[in-house]
């Protein structure tokens, strides 16, 4: 695999879009979290809520893991976009064919793209770890690993976004269409997820059936649903009426979807004409 990744690096290191998007991403992670940090500190902290919210500091240890993971989660479309471009470029310029002709197997071709999706997810997670650490210390609280599981959820979400991007790339093959469909799918699934959540609440309140937030059982929302902004005390009170969050079920589903995306991407490359 190292040999394959070295070859892939030869393609990436000369690609300006990769350099530019990666730089934006690193800057974006720090900037986004800084904005959230500042807004909370200067605006939310000054709202009079009967003393309930003023004590809420989302970047303190141990909430920093959850807040940073959640805030950075909004940027995960950027690496996904990059992956779609990298995969579809191979089809546009028929370099996928040339790689195979030159001696890669079809499995090697798709495996290195999937490995790239994994590496990007790992890099993003490391970035989140460092950012959370910095803002945690900046908030003046003592280090704690409580809530660190959210960094793991972030990794799942990042990998999920990346693998869907690879899947779209290998199935759609055209850059514009693949990006378009990616965003349409994100939007559509979000709407369906909201409707399912409303249904879940209705089932619980009217029939006493608690199936959890069913919106979280969809492919993108499974990993999305794991990451939420830390509950402030007001929201915690309101939440008692909502369906239970079956976290382990959602984790298993998210992992299951990852396996599905991986399998579908491989199958497409291995079985079809290039």
């Amino acid at each position, binding site marked *: 695999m190292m040999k394959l990744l070295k070859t892939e690096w030869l393609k990436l290191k000369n*690609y300006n879009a990769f350099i530019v998007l990666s730089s934006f991403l690193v800057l974006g992670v720090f900037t986004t979290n800084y904005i959230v940090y500042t807004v909370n500190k200067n605006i939310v902290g000054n709202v009079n809520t009967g003393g309930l919210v003023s004590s809420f500091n989302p970047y303190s240890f141990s909430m920093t893991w959850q807040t940073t993971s959640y805030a950075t989660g909004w940027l995960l479309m950027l690496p996904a976009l990059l992956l779609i471009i990298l995969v579809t470029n191979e089809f546009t310029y028929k370099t996928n064919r040339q790689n*195979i002709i030159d001696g890669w197997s079809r499995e090697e071709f798709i495996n290195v793209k999937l490995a790239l999706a994994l590496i990007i997810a790992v890099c993003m997670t490391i970035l989140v770890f460092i950012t959370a650490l910095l803002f945690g210390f900046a908030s003046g609280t003592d280090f704690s690993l409580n809530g660190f599981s959210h960094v793991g959820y972030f990794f799942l979400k990042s990998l999920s976004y990346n693998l869907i991007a690879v899947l779209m790339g290998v199935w759609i093959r055209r850059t514009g269409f693949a990006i378009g469909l990616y965003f349409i799918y994100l939007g559509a699934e979000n709407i369906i997820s909201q409707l399912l959540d409303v249904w879940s609440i209705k089932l619980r309140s009217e029939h006493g059936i608690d199936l959890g937030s069913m919106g979280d059982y969809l492919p993108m929302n499974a990993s999305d649903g794991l990451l939420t902004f830390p509950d402030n005390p007001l929201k915690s009170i309101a939440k008692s009426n909502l369906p239970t969050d079956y976290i382990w079920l959602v984790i298993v589903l998210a992992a299951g979807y990852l396996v599905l995306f991986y399998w579908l991407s491989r199958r497409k490359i291995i079985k079809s004409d290039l």
Partner: protein
Amino acid sequence: MEVLKVENLSKNYGQIKALKEVNFSVPAGTVFGILGPNGSGKTTLLGIIMDVLKASGGSYRLFGQEPTHEHRKQIGTLLETPNFYHYMTAVQNLKVSAAIKERGEDDIDRVLEIVNLAARKNSRFSTYSLGMKQRLAIGAALLGNPDVLVFDEPTNGLDPVGIAEIRELIKKLSQQGKTIIMASHLLDEVEKVCTHVAILKQGNLLTYGDVNEILVNEDVVEIRSSEMSRMEDVMKRIPGHTSIKLSEGNLHLLFPAGTADLASVNRFCFDNGITLSHLQLKKKSLESKFFELTN
């Protein structure tokens, strides 16, 4: 040894049968031309062998073995169009090819010299003309000096000088004992460089074998006189011929390969009171053979 053996290879695109149970083999050390009009299945055939297309039926063997991606590393291939990363230079692109083929990068300068791209080796691929792109693709195929080369329409986009250079290159490679499989619709190109030929039409393999056997399966004696219609009647009686036909003011007498004797034809005409103004033994051109087979 056979470099390539194709057995009952078929490819369907929905209802369209692009290849229909094609069988042939390519002996080592030959320049094997795959000839056929546009859409005859040449590129589809090579695409299957290079694993970018999936066969609907049949099989093939490379170097006498079940084909794997490792075999493709030993073959230099230009398939259909030059496929390179448009944002990378020639050298950067060849580094990717060399890495995949597991060949050293030290061969890059040599192949760029061969295809006359050394001066532009650090220019981006997107700035290349069509001819330069084609040259780079040929250069990439030569990386690592493989013993087997596959060229699909190698002279596409080249100017006359470029065409002649590539033709010479193919001849030189052949003299070095390399096996070259070349698909082309340019009959002249195939005739000038190939030792073996396979002719495809609408996915069917019409014939294949030694180029001399395929071309020289008939001798054509071309004759002309001032009394063409009487000569035609007289020549119908000449012994040993297979057919007679008029062609552009000449009469063509067809004999089985190696049996035509110009002196006998001349004597036969003279004995029958016909004076010839033109007498010539013609080797059947690949073009006429091609049209005869494909029409």
